[in-house]
């Protein structure tokens, strides 16, 4: 290895920085995705609870507001 001919260790600081950038950004991205998903799900839960409350109180027809809220939820998954 050529490094052995040099004095002291190789200058590899840039790579170390790159490595740690990768490590922390991936962890951060995952954490953020958890937070965002949690927030979305909680919002969905609120809407659904409203719908449920309204459905048990309302007549079978349901309102427009329920329909628009409902269509916003369709197709969303975990």
């Amino acid at each position, binding site marked *: 290895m050529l*490094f052995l001919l040099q004095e002291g260790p190789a200058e590899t600081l840039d790579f170390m920085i790159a490595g740690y950038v990768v490590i922390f950004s*991936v*962890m951060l991205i995952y954490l953020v995705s958890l937070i965002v998903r949690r927030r979305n799900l909680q919002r969905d839960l609120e809407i*659904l609870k409203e*719908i449920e409350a309204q459905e048990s109180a309302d007549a079978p027809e349901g309102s427009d507001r329920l329909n628009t809220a409902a269509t916003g939820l369709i197709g969303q*998954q*975990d």
Partner: protein
Amino acid sequence: MESKPRLLSILDVVTALMLLAATALVFFYAPVEAVMGQVQKVFYFHVASGWVGMLSFMTAAAAGIIYLMRGSSNWDIVGVAAVEIGIAFSFINIVTGSIWARPIWNTWWTWDPRLTTATIMLLIYLAYLMLRSGIEDPNRRARFGAVYAIVGFVSVPLTFFSARLFRTIHPVVIGSNQPGAEGSFDMTPLMLQVFLFSLLTFTVVYADLLWHRIRLGKLAEKVEQLKLKTMS
């Protein structure tokens, strides 16, 4: 799943502190390696991430087995959580392995058996998610996920052996004369301490993230059930 358990809040704090401490140890306590220089410090979290990747893999397979035996959807949630986290950390493992290899061996990839196996493991994880996304029925989705997690888990040690056998018969000219070594250096006692602490830290990080992800999964399940109830 309304309020966050107190234990989890404590775990969050502990995790954050340990991660901070581990990082500080790596940068200020661990010595600079005599030959490779600063980039060697990537090694600590690189191996720790690989460790978490394997831990997740085992968790997913175990959760799969238990799911098949018990049928409770909670274990399916654990399985998916483990796979997701496993993907993130396997990715970190592979990329940092590549970054470490570059200045040392002057190549971005070494086909080292451990790295190769880690990549295949990542592909199995991704295949797991693709399998699940193609199935509508939740019960079937969970069962298939469990089966594939188990099959994948059983295959990985065999993959590692075959990759290593392949390497010993075909020693790679670049790199050290130990075929299969990722980049060998002698670990001083200080390095060993930092290394072990990093492993411990990442295990705690894993536990913390897993718990959060499981809670998320349960919330999602609740939303799904409510959705079915109100929409039908």
